[in-house]
């Protein structure tokens, strides 16, 4: 069975399982919170994955995830929250507006050859700032008053609020990750990786450099905006300060770097780990420590676990699965924690520690990979953004 078929089948299975999880939750009488937890993880997987398609694949480091996310949130907030448009209609429109904005930015920025590396990163940051400033001034958008989404009706076929959020985020998450996978495993993907390694050479080899970057940026912006639009409901009250801040841009970087930048599974693993830890730390009341841990994680992982947790896991998949099964099994059977999520968090930590020790240099290409894949991880980013 070809690897691509395997992956697509895997997607299908995952989709079905995940789709029916809320029903499972109800029949097993597990806390509803698990559903909320899951759909928040979906949110982050989608944001991180879309970011990875631009930054991880092409090497153009973007600090601007907040811009596309913010456009999505505000598009839906203005159209639905302020003007009463149908929510289901507004969400894709939000995605398209974000896409349009992204393409517009790309048109300007990718034509200027000197805008690479950190300059590009700062430009994306500046765009987010400008959008926030514009939204502040323009009363038609926000003007400072904020927009209430609490009165926005959701179509009935989606179910109650929590189920609806779950289904919407699940769908968008699956689409985003599927897109990331398909791109990685395609000509476009190879072109992007070539651009990341050495842009002029890539151009010389016939890679359609400009078009590839535009598509990557477009994918990034579209999915970020799409998910942002759905997320406006979870926010409830949309304000500039709550939307255009450092949270989303920061976390997508952290999650992707942890999970493995440049590989489509990286953000998935990273988002699950980071969000679970963050949630459990919060519920334990360790929020100050939470911040310090995240900061420390960022530092250590960027320098130490360069290829990302996912690739480590895959390289030592037997160890991973066995450890996971044993620890998770033990924790659940002996009912160590009241919450399954806490069980999961502890299991993950153990797995990650096990994977870190002992240290070996795992050469990419061994242990059951599908052959030559693109170089991934922090080292591949070193020459980021071309010349």
């Amino acid at each position, binding site marked *: 069975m070809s690897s691509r078929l395997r992956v697509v089948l895997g997607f299908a299975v995952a989709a079905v399982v995940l789709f029916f999880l809320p029903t499972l939750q109800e029949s097993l009488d597990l806390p509803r919170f698990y559903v909320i937890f899951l759909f928040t993880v979906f949110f982050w997987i989608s944001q991180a994955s879309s970011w990875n398609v631009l930054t991880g694949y092409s090497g153009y480091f973007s600090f601007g995830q907040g811009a596309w996310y913010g456009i999505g949130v505000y598009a839906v907030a203005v159209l639905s929250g302020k003007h009463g448009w149908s929510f289901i209609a507004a969400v894709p429109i939000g995605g398209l507006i974000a896409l349009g904005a992204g393409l517009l930015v790309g048109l300007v920025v990718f034509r200027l050859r000197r805008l690479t590396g*950190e300059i590009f*990163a700062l*430009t994306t*940051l500046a765009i987010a700032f400008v959008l926030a400033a514009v939204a502040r001034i323009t009363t038609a958008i926000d003007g400072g008053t904020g927009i209430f989404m609490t009165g926005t009706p959701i179509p009935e076929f989606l179910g109650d609020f929590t189920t609806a959020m779950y289904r919407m985020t699940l769908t968008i998450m699956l689409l985003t990750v599927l897109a990331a996978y398909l791109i990685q495993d395609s000509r476009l993907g190879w072109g992007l990786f070539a651009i990341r390694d050495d842009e002029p050479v890539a151009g010389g080899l016939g890679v359609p450099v400009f078009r590839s970057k535009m598509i990557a940026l477009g994918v990034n912006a579209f999915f970020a905006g799409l998910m942002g639009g759905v997320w406006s409901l979870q926010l409830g009250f949309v304000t500039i300060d709550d939307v255009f801040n450092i949270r989303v841009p920061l976390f997508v970087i952290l999650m992707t770097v942890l999970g493995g930048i440049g590989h489509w599974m990286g953000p998935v693993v990273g988002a699950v780990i980071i969000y679970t830890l963050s949630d459990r730390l919060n519920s334990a009341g360790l929020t*100050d420590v939470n*911040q*310090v841990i995240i*900061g420390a994680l960022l*530092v250590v992982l*960027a320098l130490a676990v360069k290829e990302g947790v996912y690739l480590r896991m895959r390289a030592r998949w037997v160890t991973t699965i066995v450890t996971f099964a044993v620890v998770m099994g033990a924790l659940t059977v002996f009912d160590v924690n009241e919450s399954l999520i806490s069980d999961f968090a502890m299991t993950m930590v153990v797995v990650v520690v096990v994977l870190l020790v002992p240290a070996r240099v795992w050469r990419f290409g061994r242990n059951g990979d599908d052959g030559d894949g693109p170089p991934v991880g922090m080292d591949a980013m070193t020459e980021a953004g071309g010349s």
Partner: protein
Amino acid sequence: MDLIVQGVVTGILIGGLYALMSLGISLSWGALKIINLAQFSFILLSAYLVYQLTVSFEVDPLLTLVVVLPVFFAAGALMQMFFHWAKVDEFKSLIVTFGFFIILQSVMQTIWSADFRQIGTTLNEYQQGSFVIAGIALPYPSLMAFGAAVVIAISMSAVLTRTYFGKAVRAVAQDPEMARAYGVDPSRVAVMLSGFSSAFSALAGLFIAVGQSIFPGLAVTWFGVVFSVVILGGLGNAMGALTAGVIVGVAAGTASVVWGPLAAPLVTFIILIAALLFRPEGLLTRRSVA
């Protein structure tokens, strides 16, 4: 009092403060190829330290420089040694220093709480005082910051062009290996430079502590302004930073007065974008490091 003239004057002065705040990042980036986001935390941490020392020992806030400057010089030096050891390059520096930023923010909040801290006018006579010339007021904190910025900018330019150290810095910025071949130790130069960068940030923190209330969330509000100044002024260019700071300060201040305060951040960021798009090498590139 002519409103516009007052607006321009205060804009120039606060531009000096912006320049001070940006010097650290500009120098690291230009000479060391490290984009050091932790400098933002250093500025704020320095402000907190100035506040704490002033309040605990009841001294003139300016005196705290004696302690604060060396401390941050050392911190900067240590940080650079860490980067060298960890072989941090430009891209990783963004992420790693971001991590430091988050850690420092959290530490500051734990120690000083999220509440607003202000030295208070009994100990701090500079906060509300000003020099008045021909009906135009020059507030002390930003006046001092401007003065310091001018002195530093001029000195740095002189140092970079005329002293051995300055030439060593420029050599390292352009090609560390070649510099080494000529007897310059790049890592020593880098450590010194990082120390100075952090000291400049600490100085900026002093003027902030003297000029306003501080709280943990303050650091994030500086990102936009500082990056505008850094890019516009040119990486590693001290005079450029000063010029850019003044331009940003005057533009934002004038925009605020003419179109209302909401226009000020918009102007700042438009300047940033314009600088990034049209002149990412900065305005006064000739006298820069790299």
